[in-house]
């Protein structure tokens, strides 16, 4: 629901409450005013009658349907004036009672006392109620229509710069070689928003470029010194006078240099996938062939490790993916299955139209299935040359291609499944 729709609905809700309360207040105010006016008219009428008595108009003449006069005689008594509500038969409608307003007064006129009572038709409460509700309802309808019209107007015109800004932000890509451009607007808040967003985008782009440059340079700049150090150690190995202990130290240094070099390459790969550098190289790839090639490459290593390698590969599984990443994806899964295995175990690779599944025997993982795909999460105690980045790379590749990866472990068997066609 858009902001304007929400605001309008909320406003109408408040208006409904205000009109309800306003209706009640109006009802009582009108009722009070009507009563005041009726009372005033009755009082005025009373004064007229008093004056007419004084003028000597006969009482019988003055007594009409609504006026009742009683001569109380000359004995002095209290004079008073009261108003009261009463019910009386309706003048036209047979058998229906109707509310009347009644004034009762005792007055002294020319030494005699008279009790005068006058009744008058009173405007009915439910009539007032009906009118008030009617008025409020009409006003509310007019207001609602006006509000809806107004909200359309606001969305279409007032919020146009905001919508443009949103569109620009949505289509903004750090990889594009241009800064974020936002529309001009006369609205102060939108101007502030645009300035803020533009500054954020500028900073993000600057940081992104710096990180990208760093990680790109890191590979070359790091590999060369490593290659040099490795070469120096190899030259050192050629020195005839080295003791076994010294040779062992050199070899250990060499092994760690190898590891560092592989680590650099893996981290760079993760960064490059993150930077979407492979996104533009997607092409229809024969995944069946890639999987088969990968299995052929690893068959010898698997058999050296005493592992049985089984596979069921459906032919002609085609996917739109970067070919390099497809290779890395399958290779990492198979490598992982071979590495974290048990003696006499097996690896099974199944490729179908919908998914790639790699199953292998292995010991129970020490971390949860989700954590297995995080960087440097070593799931096993034995550090058998694993960098801890293989599954992180798998995860990254699947994310970049909208695949879905999952892991299960039961009865000594690991099962990693990659679903290719995931509804987005």
């Amino acid at each position, binding site marked *: 629901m858009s902001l304007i729709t929400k605001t309008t609905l909320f406003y109408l809700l408040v208006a409904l409450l205000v009109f309800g309360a306003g209706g009640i207040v109006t009802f009582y105010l009108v009722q009070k005013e009507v009563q005041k006016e009726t009372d005033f008219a009755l009082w005025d009428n009373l004064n007229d009658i008093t004056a007419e008595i004084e003028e000597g108009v006969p009482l019988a003449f003055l007594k009409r349907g609504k006026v009742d006069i009683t001569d109380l005689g000359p004995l002095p008594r209290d004079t008073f004036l009261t108003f009261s509500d009463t019910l009386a038969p309706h003048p036209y409608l047979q058998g229906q009672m109707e509310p009347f307003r009644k004034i009762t007064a005792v007055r002294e006129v020319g030494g005699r006392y008279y009790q005068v009572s006058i009744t008058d038709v009173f405007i009915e409460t439910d009539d007032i109620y009906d009118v008030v509700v009617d008025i409020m309802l009409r006003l509310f309808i007019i207001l609602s229509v006006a509000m809806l019209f107004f909200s359309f107007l606001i969305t279409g015109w007032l919020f146009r710069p905001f919508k443009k800004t949103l569109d620009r932000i949505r289509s903004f890509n750090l990889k594009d070689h241009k800064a974020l451009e936002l529309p001009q607007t006369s609205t102060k808040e939108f101007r502030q928003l645009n300035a803020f967003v533009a500054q954020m985008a500028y900073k993000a782009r600057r940081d992104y470029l710096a990180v990208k440059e760093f990680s790109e340079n890191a590979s070359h700049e790091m590999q060369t010194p490593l290659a040099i150090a490795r070469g120096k150690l190899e030259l050192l190995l050629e020195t005839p006078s080295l003791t076994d202990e010294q040779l062992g130290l050199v070899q250990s240094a060499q092994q760690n240099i190898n590891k560092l070099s592989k680590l650099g*390459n893996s981290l760079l790969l993760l960064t490059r996938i993150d930077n979407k550098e492979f996104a533009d190289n997607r092409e229809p790839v024969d995944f069946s062939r890639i999987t088969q090639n990968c299995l052929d490459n690893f068959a010898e290593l698997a058999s050296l490790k005493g592992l049985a390698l089984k596979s069921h590969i459906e032919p002609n599984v085609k996917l739109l993916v970067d070919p*390099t990443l497809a290779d890395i994806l399958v290779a990492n899964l198979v490598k992982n299955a071979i590495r974290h295995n048990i003696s006499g175990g097996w690896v099974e690779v199944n490729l179908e139209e919908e998914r790639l599944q790699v199953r292998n025997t292995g010991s129970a993982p020490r971390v949860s299935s989700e954590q297995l795909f995080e960087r440097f999460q070593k799931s096993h105690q034995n550090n058998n040359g694993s960098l801890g980045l293989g599954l992180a790379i798998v995860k990254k590749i699947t994310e970049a291609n909208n695949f879905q990866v999952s892991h299960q472990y039961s009865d000594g068997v690991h099962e990693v499944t990659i679903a290719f066609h995931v509804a987005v």
Partner: protein
Amino acid sequence: MKLLIVEDEKALSDNIRAYLSRGDVVCETAFNFEEAQDKLLSFDYDIVLLDIMLPDGNGLNLLRLLKRLQPETGVLIISAKNALDDKVEGLELGADDYLTKPFHLPELNARLNAIFRRRKFKGHKVLEFGEITVNTDTHDVLVHDAPLVLTLKEYELLLFFITNKNRVLTKQAIAEHLWGDNVDLLDSFDFVYQHIKNLRKKIAAEGGEDYIKTIYGLGYKFSAD
């Protein structure tokens, strides 16, 4: 073998030259595009070792130039980039092989020798070491003129030893040469020992000497000493 090393990193270039010069390789060096171009225009080389990323130009352009000037010269590309497209482009332009940094120097030596054999002797090259002869064309191995039946891995192992004779070879360098980069999947390099044991046994059966010297905990050295 006359080799031109085109590598901008002087220390790495020195390593390679120091290592290869101990064998029968004459090394010259060029540290940038300009220098390499001058040398290629002036001299003939058997093999050019070419770093693609040079400070003042793309090594692939040097490769194009070289293939026009001296098509017979072998080319081994070295690069930190293990990008597939660079590799493919280099090989399409006529490079013989591709090596990714960092590499083992014995591996570099073996690859250079393989290119040299292919280029210079069109594969008809017989390597000799004592009573052992290896025909790299037919893959025939003779000990005291008696044929030796070797598996493919044993053959590759023997060839690696002979091209790197008198050099220390770590078990890792041997394993990576025979089984590729993914060899770290294996928990130990014991299977290297298995192959070496078999090779020794087969050579000894034909009355050959045991040239494979074990360096405890580290690796092996193929030497007549």
